[in-house]
């Protein structure tokens, strides 16, 4: 009983409270009166940010940049929605978006996949877009990325590099590595493509695999990468979000290579990130916004973003160009062309299940 005591502080408190009570009453009164009426023009679009939030320097940030740019270009009123509890609030959040005059809602949060069809059918006048998974519904557009294709190219490049001589970052062992964030089909889609690409170049190349079981722990990433380098790997590809920062750091420390993912991570450790496997969530969002703004929203359809569309791909080796032999770059280009032309079909774990090289 100390600082709250005394008549003076009591008077002060009572005044504070009555003031705040008044203001709350006022808020409620005016709040109910000025309900915003849904307006037709201008077109409004909302972007629901996924777990991890903005500032992840990857998926969310990239999507956000595409959203900001495209809504501005197309004159659409764009609004982002973040939540600290995006998993549990999904239902209420999306429903509220459905009743708030938005014509388009793009949802980046993967765990909303199951609830989306119900909500979309409850709000048929709103267009809904979902990334990374195919969701059925006449007013839902799904965007899928062909990450297996870009990972295939990365695997092929890594296999060619690991047999290189005269590069201090490359050791004699024919070993490369890959670290997944979690053991799931969504991640194994990357891993499978990477291994397939590596084996296609040289079937004797050994690919070490590991899972960090977390997307947010750079220390774990660093430890896993260190251990792979010790086992003789010299190039480690990470598909593990924030955990990957540790992989890149370990590559720099041990004078080896890492391969980045999603965003262009080459600049995080110039010269030590061989390349990054791009997944252009910005392009996906931009495409959806543009189609919506033009009145061509592909409801009920799947938008496939592959090498051809530029939705996935490798970086242009800004810092490692001189270390990669001309022949290797040519070979990667050839493979890319073959995939785009349909001559080469990379295994897709999601559609086809696990391939022979990923059993056990």
């Amino acid at each position, binding site marked *: 009983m100390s600082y709250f005591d*005394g008549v003076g502080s009591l008077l002060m*408190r009572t005044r504070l409270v009555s003031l705040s009570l008044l203001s709350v009453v006022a808020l409620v009164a005016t709040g109910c009166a000025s309900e915003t009426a849904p307006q037709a023009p201008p077109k409004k679009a909302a972007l629901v940010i996924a*777990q991890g939030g903005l500032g992840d320097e990857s998926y969310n940030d990239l999507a956000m940049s595409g959203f900001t740019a495209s809504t501005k270009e197309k004159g659409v009123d764009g609004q982002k*929605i973040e939540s600290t509890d995006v998993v549990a*609030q999904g239902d209420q*959040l999306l429903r509220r978006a459905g*009743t708030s005059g938005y014509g388009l809602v793009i949802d980046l949060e993967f765990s909303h996949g199951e609830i989306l069809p119900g909500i979309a059918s409850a709000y048929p006048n709103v267009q809904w877009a979902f990334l990374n998974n195919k969701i059925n519904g006449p007013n839902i557009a799904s965007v899928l990325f062909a990450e297996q294709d870009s990972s295939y190219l990365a695997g092929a490049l890594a296999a060619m590099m690991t047999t290189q001589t005269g590069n201090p970052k490359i050791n004699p062992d024919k070993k490369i590595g890959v670290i997944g964030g979690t*053991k799931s089909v969504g991640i194994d889609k990357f891993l499978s493509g990477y291994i397939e690409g590596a084996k296609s170049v040289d079937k004797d190349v050994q690919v070490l695999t590991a899972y960090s079981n977390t997307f947010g722990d750079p220390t774990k990433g660093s430890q896993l990468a260190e251990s792979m380098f010790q086992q003789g790997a010299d190039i480690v590809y990470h598909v593990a979000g924030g955990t990957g920062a540790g992989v890149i750091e370990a590559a720099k420390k041990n004078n080896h290579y890492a391969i980045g993912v999603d965003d262009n991570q080459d600049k995080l450790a110039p010269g030590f990130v061989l390349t990054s496997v791009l997944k252009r969530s910005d392009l996906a969002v931009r495409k959806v916004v543009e189609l919506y703004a033009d009145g061509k929203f592909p409801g009920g359809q799947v938008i496939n973003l592959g090498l051809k569309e530029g939705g996935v791909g490798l970086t242009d080796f800004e810092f490692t160009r001189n270390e990669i032999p001309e022949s290797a770059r040519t070979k990667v280009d050839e493979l890319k062309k073959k995939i785009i032309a349909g001559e080469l079909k990379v295994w897709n774990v999601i559609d086809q299940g696990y391939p022979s090289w990923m059993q056990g």
Partner: protein
Amino acid sequence: MSVFQGSNPGKYSRALTRVVRAAVPFVIALGLGGIVLLATGHNPLAFYQLLVREAFGGVDRIAATLSAATPLLFTGLATAIAFRAGVFNVGVEGGFVFGGLIAATVALQAGLLAGMVAGALAGVLVSALPGWLKARWNVDEVVTTLMVNFVVAGVTGWLVTTFLQAKGVANSATALIPQGSWLPDLLPPYGLTAGVLVALALVVLYAVWIKHSVLGYELRQTGLNPRFSAAQGIRVGRVIMVSMLISGAIAGLGGAVHALGVVHRFVDGFSPGYGFTGIAVALLGRNSAVGVALGAVLFGALASAGTTAQLFSDIPLDIVDVLSGTVMIFAVVRLWRQR
């Protein structure tokens, strides 16, 4: 004793004092938030008005607020019960998460009721060891419950990426629970589940139990003065153990309700720290039933309104974090003064 209490021995003025004291952190938070809003060129009144509307301005919004408050009712209550016995249990988060995983797994096979029971038992399991260590050897419960949280995070993270992971799902999640085993919706389509009724029933039960049951009496006395309690023949160790087990059961049940009602599976990001917000709820509500209920609704309102307010305003979510963060700091200051 304050002059106020001395000169006004009436029941209502004491009640008023308590309400005033409980409201102080919130009022200061609004003031602080207002300053930040003004400094960034926004109109605080307009924003607060928006928040009130998004929290309570319609059946759908009230449903959203209650839905967001539901996990906090469980974690706040679980924390309050342990605090009341003088046990500073910060392991409610672990009980909630583990309860959620086990409930989601069991419900897949055995249905809703079995899932709820299993979730509560899982929570009990999480709190049993720290409870025993505290009761038997007086091992500091803050350390042990905090460690248990880490263990649970590790174990659930591992299970959900190995044995319990759903086939063909692209992220770390268990399989979707069939709709027959979901907690029923109260106000379709607003997504408010019967879980909130379970929570409120527990809060009412707690209010009566802590005040009028023999065990509740022993729990209160143990929390107020363990030495006195022991000398009067209250088995302090047993009371501490019981309080931890009940706390764990409520935490686990909370996880079960969250899994079976809202998420319909266990998934990465299942709890954004409900257990820790529950500590603030319990502190703010002074471990009383009414206080916990109000605290949970307050934080629930901030969470639900803060999210959907972004649909109507350019003000970032951060300002809502400032509000709830300020309230939490005051709750913790109170704790510090108590200890």
